[in-house]
């Protein structure tokens, strides 16, 4: 050890220096405080022995300066003093001294003190090394998380979270706290949103989030509805997550055409439907979280809610009600509810909740493990063609073909053929840019055949207040008996200069309906005033196609749909 010894009395200095060097330490000698500080700076000693009373600069001041120079390094500083008053000795320690040694010096005590401080120094060094190590590791982990986040973003892009009717708060690193938030436009209109909260933190939670993102965006783009997506996520998570890890989640499928919301909540705090009129409807958790149950036990049954443009659906992870304030108290679900109950007409729930959270926590930034999303119902718009450029791979593929696909019996209840049929059509070069329109055509034909043909449901229920829920219940009940029924799709595609023609015939085994009245109105080239038949979707089909024919007893509908390449594609595709 290097020991700095500052003592103005030459004889005392000599005695002490000899004592210390006999203990095996190197001694650096200073005659006063100023020299002690200078030598400290030059030689970086490990321990300092300092006389309290010295000329030029006394020990107290030297101690302050030396401690300041040492910074984070622990340099034990022992005062040498002939003072014996308690107040004087205390001042030595207040000035930064770690201990004192009273003259005359006792060799045994000096040795014991030097050894004790040497041990303390070693301990301090070990702690500092470990702290630096942890700091480096933490920095490395944060760097890795940022990189991983970029990979994750490429899979779980923001989807349509930036749509004007969606407000959300999700921290950029929230995925490492187990929170995920996805939103996608469904082909043919409507929005699908999923908010999830994995158990655990860090890497395991983030890894679990990856397949959920892939499944969500992949299936949503193909036209699968919420129950199918949920079943698939549950199946996947059940298989890949270790027992004890799972994902609480809330999925909502907003249907702007029928003004309805279908919601599934498994383990998240209550979601809330806030009607423009001021009503509040809770959407409590009714299911086990995702990844807990085997696929055959999993229930994807959705709660159906009637909603109108302007209504909000609010969903959140438990980080929001559980966020602590400085006193450790959380807002609680009651606190959330009181914010929602206090909303004024036209006030957005998102802003109000965030403002309340900031007030509660006293911090402008919200924690990473808190995700909030509000979805507003809007008026249905015509499905938009995707404006994206057509990738090269979309310009080769089958263009001239015909296929027949028939669903029978129980399969009518168990299986949704739309993603499959859409997939077949999307193989046609260039038609992918029209996936929204094609999905709408197929789904209107299918729903018409299933609901009004096979199940003989009355579309008038859907127009009455609260009727959609009743309609939906009846639909589920009647799906229990589809004996002897079928729906048959015949699809045909032919290429044309600059585009193609898709012909779809949809037949069903139902009793049909009185369509003569409908045909009459079609012949009169009427405006969109056929309110009575709007439920049959025929009006939408008529507007989107070149030709619509209703045959037989009304249970055979044929459409002819012409489409063209977007301008840019004609050049490269010609």
């Amino acid at each position, binding site marked *: 050890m290097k020991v700095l010894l500052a003592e103005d009395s030459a004889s005392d200095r000599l005695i002490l220096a000899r004592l210390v060097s006999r203990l095996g330490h190197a001694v650096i000698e200073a005659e006063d405080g100023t020299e002690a500080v200078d030598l400290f700076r030059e030689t970086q000693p490990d321990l300092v022995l300092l006389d309290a009373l010295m000329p030029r600069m006394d020990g107290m001041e030297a101690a302050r300066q030396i401690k300041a120079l040492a910074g984070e390094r622990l340099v034990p500083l022992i005062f040498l003093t002939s003072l014996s008053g308690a107040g004087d000795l205390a001042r030595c320690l207040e000035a930064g001294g770690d201990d004192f040694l009273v003259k005359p010096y006792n060799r045994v005590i000096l040795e014991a003190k030097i050894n004790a401080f040497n041990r303390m120094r070693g301990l301090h060094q070990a702690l500092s090394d470990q702290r630096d190590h942890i700091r480096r590791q933490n920095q490395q982990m944060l760097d890795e998380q940022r990189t991983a986040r970029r990979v994750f973003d490429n899979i779980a892009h923001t989807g349509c979270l930036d749509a004007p009717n969606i407000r959300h708060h999700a921290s950029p690193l929230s995925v490492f706290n187990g929170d995920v938030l996805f939103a996608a436009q469904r082909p043919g209109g409507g929005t699908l949103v999923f908010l999830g*909260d994995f*158990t655990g933190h860090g890497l395991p939670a983030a890894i679990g989030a990856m397949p959920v993102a892939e499944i969500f965006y992949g299936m949503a783009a193909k036209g699968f509805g919420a129950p199918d997506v949920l079943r698939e996520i549950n199946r996947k998570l059940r298989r890949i997550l270790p027992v*004890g890890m*799972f994902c609480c989640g809330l999925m909502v499928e907003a249907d702007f055409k029928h003004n309805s919301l279908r919601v599934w909540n*498994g383990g998240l705090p209550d979601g809330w439907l806030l009607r423009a009129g001021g009503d509040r409807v809770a959407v409590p*958790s009714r*299911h*086990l*979280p995702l990844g807990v149950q085997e696929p055959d036990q999993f229930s994807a049954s959705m709660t159906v809610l009637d909603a109108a443009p302007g209504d909000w659906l609010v969903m959140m992870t438990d980080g929001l009600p559980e966020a602590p304030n400085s006193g450790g108290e959380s807002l609680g679900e009651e606190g959330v509810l009181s914010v929602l109950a206090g909303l004024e007409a036209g006030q957005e729930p998102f802003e109000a909740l965030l403002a309340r959270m900031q007030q509660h926590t006293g911090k402008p930034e919200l924690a990473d493990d808190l995700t909030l999303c509000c979805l507003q119902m809007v008026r249905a718009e015509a499905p938009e063609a995707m404006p994206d450029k057509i990738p090269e791979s979309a310009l080769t593929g089958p263009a001239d073909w015909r296929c027949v696909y028939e669903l029978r019996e129980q399969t009518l209840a168990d299986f949704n053929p739309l993603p499959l049929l859409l997939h077949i059509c999307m193989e046609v070069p260039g038609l992918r840019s029209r996936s929204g329109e094609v999905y709408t055509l197929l789904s209107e034909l299918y729903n018409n055949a299933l609901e009004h043909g096979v199940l003989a449901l009355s579309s008038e229920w859907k127009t009455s207040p609260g009727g959609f829920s009743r309609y939906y219940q009846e639909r589920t009940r009647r799906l229990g008996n589809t004996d002897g029924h079928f729906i048959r799709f015949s699809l045909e595609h032919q290429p044309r200069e600059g585009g193609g023609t898709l012909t779809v015939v949809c037949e069903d085994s139902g009793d049909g309906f009185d369509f003569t009245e409908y045909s009459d109105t079609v012949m009169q080239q009427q405006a969109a005033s056929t309110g009575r038949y709007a439920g049959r979707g025929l009006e939408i089909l008529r507007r989107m196609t070149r030709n619509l024919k209703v045959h037989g007893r009304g249970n055979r509908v044929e459409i002819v749909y012409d489409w063209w390449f977007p301008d840019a594609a004609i050049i490269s595709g010609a």
Partner: protein
Amino acid sequence: MPIETRRSDDGKTLTICVEGRFDFSTHQSFRDAYEHSEPTVSHYVIDLSDTTYLDSSALGMLLLLRDHAGGDGARISIENCNSDVRRILSISNFEQLFSIR
């Protein structure tokens, strides 16, 4: 000790009591409590009389116990929950997997 276990006289029922916070910090001792139990144990009782708080990692631990005890055939009852604990169990719909009394 935040976790205590006791066995019934016939050796068939293992009762695990969790004291204070039931969260990730009790992970190892909770596992030890049932993994080292006798093979004669066929029924588990989780006594939460003295549990003040329960988080999602505790839910995960309950699922691990359920798996250990035979999955769907497991006989596990969760007893004496306070209202906060009860609320967390019911948000996650754990009454479908455990008998909660």
